[in-house]
């Protein structure tokens, strides 16, 4: 299964262009989408999910144009939007049966499938009470269950770990890794650690454009030799920030350990080079192209 996106542009009006001439090939495995707010990640995912039409460009799923024939992908699509809701008066069973009906799934195995999915997201005990009484994390888990109802071949997760606690996030990542063997998973998250632990490939977006798309290792390589750490006095931090792109800071006794990007070949005295991470590479590339 392969999704080929060619010269995609989405223009909302004359002033606002969400995506510009965007092209990418997505194959089986996990593609992590990274980018600052307004980069066009959600727009791209909405277009792939067929709920938004591109202004220009083609999207082919195994050679079939899904802009013209959206039902081709809808049959095999699992979609977890960023700010989805639920019908508060339905319980988990009724809600999942409803989503199953929307997706065109039925038969005798449906109830068993729903039972297993509810067990999998640990909602069995609460499955018969209205979803309106669920906590944020529980709603997020019901969202994950609905995305998996139709044995999807294309899975789109937009900020899926919002509302999940750290242990749930870890389990969710494991779930994604298990599912990635025979389907396309597109995962957008602001939490870089969500992506670096599971994404086979990473696409970094900025201002509606694709900055880079490569395996994680290759992306990290682009920042190698650019990331440094240095220990500073407390009162020197503000001045340092004016000169360098600081990634993060950590208090250590009476000093501060500062991790920064050197883009100008102007390394601060007493700095030591460190191994780049995906987060470093992401910040390096977005600042370089910003």
């Amino acid at each position: 299964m392969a999704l080929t996106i060619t010269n995609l542009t989405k223009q909302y009006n004359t002033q606002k262009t969400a995506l510009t001439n965007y092209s990418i090939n997505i194959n089986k495995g996990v593609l992590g989408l990274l980018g600052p707010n307004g980069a066009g990640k959600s727009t791209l995912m909405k277009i792939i999910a067929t709920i938004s039409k591109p202004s220009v460009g083609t999207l082919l799923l195994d050679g079939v144009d899904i802009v013209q024939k959206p039902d081709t992908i809808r049959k095999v699509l699992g979609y977890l939007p960023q700010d989805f809701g639920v019908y508060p008066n339905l319980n988990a069973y009724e809600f999942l049966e409803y989503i199953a009906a929307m997706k065109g799934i039925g038969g005798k195995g449906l109830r068993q499938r729903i039972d297993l999915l509810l067990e999998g997201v640990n909602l069995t005990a609460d499955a018969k009470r209205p979803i309106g009484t669920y906590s944020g994390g529980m709603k997020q888990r019901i969202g994950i269950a609905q995305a998996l109802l139709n044995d999807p071949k294309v899975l789109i997760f937009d900020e899926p770990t919002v509302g999940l606690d750290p242990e749930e996030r870890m389990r969710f990542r494991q779930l994604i890794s298990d599912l990635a063997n025979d389907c396309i998973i597109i995962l957008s998250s602001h939490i870089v650690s969500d992506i670096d632990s599971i994404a086979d490939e990473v696409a970094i977006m900025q201002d509606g454009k694709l900055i880079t798309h490569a395996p994680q290792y290759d992306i990290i390589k682009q920042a190698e030799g650019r990331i440094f750490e240095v220990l500073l006095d407390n009162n020197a931090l503000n001045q340092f920030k004016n000169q360098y792109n600081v990634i993060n800071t950590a208090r250590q006794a009476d000093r501060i350990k500062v991790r920064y990007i050197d883009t100008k070949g102007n390394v601060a005295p007493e700095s030591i080079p460190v191994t780049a991470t995906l987060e470093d590479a992401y910040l390096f590339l977005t600042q370089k192209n910003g």
Partner: protein
Amino acid sequence: MQYLYNIIKADYLQRTRSYSFLITLAVTVFMAYSFVPPDTASYTTLSALGYKGVYNSAWVGYVSGIMTSFMLSFYGFLLVNSGIKKDIETEVGLIIATTPVTNFKYLLSKQLSNYLVLLTITGITFIVSIAVFLVRGTDQPFILGNFVFPYLFFAIPALFVVAALAVTAEVFLGKRSILQFIIYFLLFGICMAFINEKGGSDTGVFDPFGLSLMTKSITQHINTHFNEDIKSVSFGFIFNGHKTFKLFAWEGLNWTPIFIFSRLLWIGFGLGLIYISSLFFHRFDFKQAVTIKKKKLQSASAVSATEAGQLIDPMRISRSVLPALSFNYGIYPLIKTEFLLLIRQGNKWLWLLNAALWVAMFVAPFKYAYSYLLPVLLFLQVTRWSELVTKEKTNRIHYFAYASYKPLQRMLPAQIMAGILLAISLSLPVIIRSISTSNLYAVIGLLNGAVLIVLLAVALGILTGGKKLFEVFFFLLTYAVINQVPFADYLGSLPDHHAPFFIWIVLMMNLTLTVVLFIARRYQIRHL
């Protein structure tokens, strides 16, 4: 004061920047134009036993002012009674609750914003009334005061109270929209009955709409000049065929200081309502409102999650564990769930009222069941149908719905069918009685009407993205049906409408609506 102004401004802009408000304004222009009907019209808006005023400044200005005051008080409540609800749904209320703004100031800002919305509509009718005078006033002189004063002393104070009542209803009755409507219209009915019975008072102090003063002045004028003994004047859209009226020249009212002062009292009454409401306002803290049953459920949930000790279990969701998929592209499961959602929407107690009306339709005289009980019973479902296609967006389910398999061919028809199923189920007593008397036209008319009202709800929901316009429209339609207005008779209850021509007209309307709503939805599902 500045921040109060900013809250009112933001609230007002939020409400008025919508297609439904634009359509409401367009309907207002039409209604305001029809307040002063041409001589050839088959209706009148102010009738005094065969007498009608000459279209001078006073008649046009006062009739427009009084009709605006009366009609907008009647349906304006529906238009504005969701200001606090919106803050709950968008969770803006939680932010407001953490600010220093007091309950009184917050509710006052909501009331003033309601009032501004109603005043905007009033402003339009005012302008249209002058335009109508210029069109229909023949050679009568234009006197601005005859237009300004009725609006100033009738509409402006009355709408202030309506705006306050909308806030009060939201504070005390929360999300129970239908209960709010019922209580408001009961109050409205009681108020009108009081005005009609007692004539308010000689001074008109207790009449928020100013109807009694005008009635008294007109009847006195006619009785004096034409030696009649007329006791009352009828307001509203009165259909009476092409009747010939005797004309009289009425020059307006003499405003008394006590009447003008009483308008300030009505405004004070509105402020008093807001103050009392502020003492009971929940300030977006709903913990107190949680029922014992809900508390039990919540505590059970907390225990179950904790006891389980684990959360997502990837091993149980793996493909090898899940049973094989079988596909079912039929729409029956969708209809079933949509019907379930319709039934569960709103308060359970309302079903008691529905059931009582449903049974009453079997035993009441057929004419009353058909012309009065059924339209009222159908109107009581207004919030169910108005949410039929808007609930996806309200509940943010539209991502799933629009990305589902063939949403236009499966999802939308399922929603429409569920709505029609409910309408027909509620109409069954009248349908069965019509069948038993072999009244085929009535049966077809009822089915046509049931379909029409659902298609209207769906079409207006899709086109405006909200439910308000349908709710107001359905209310006015029901009012017109109960008043036997011929063109509003969507259920075909009038004997003249038991004819093929009428059935074809409604059928054509249904087909047109179907085409429009499918085209609009087709666009909508691909343009999020």
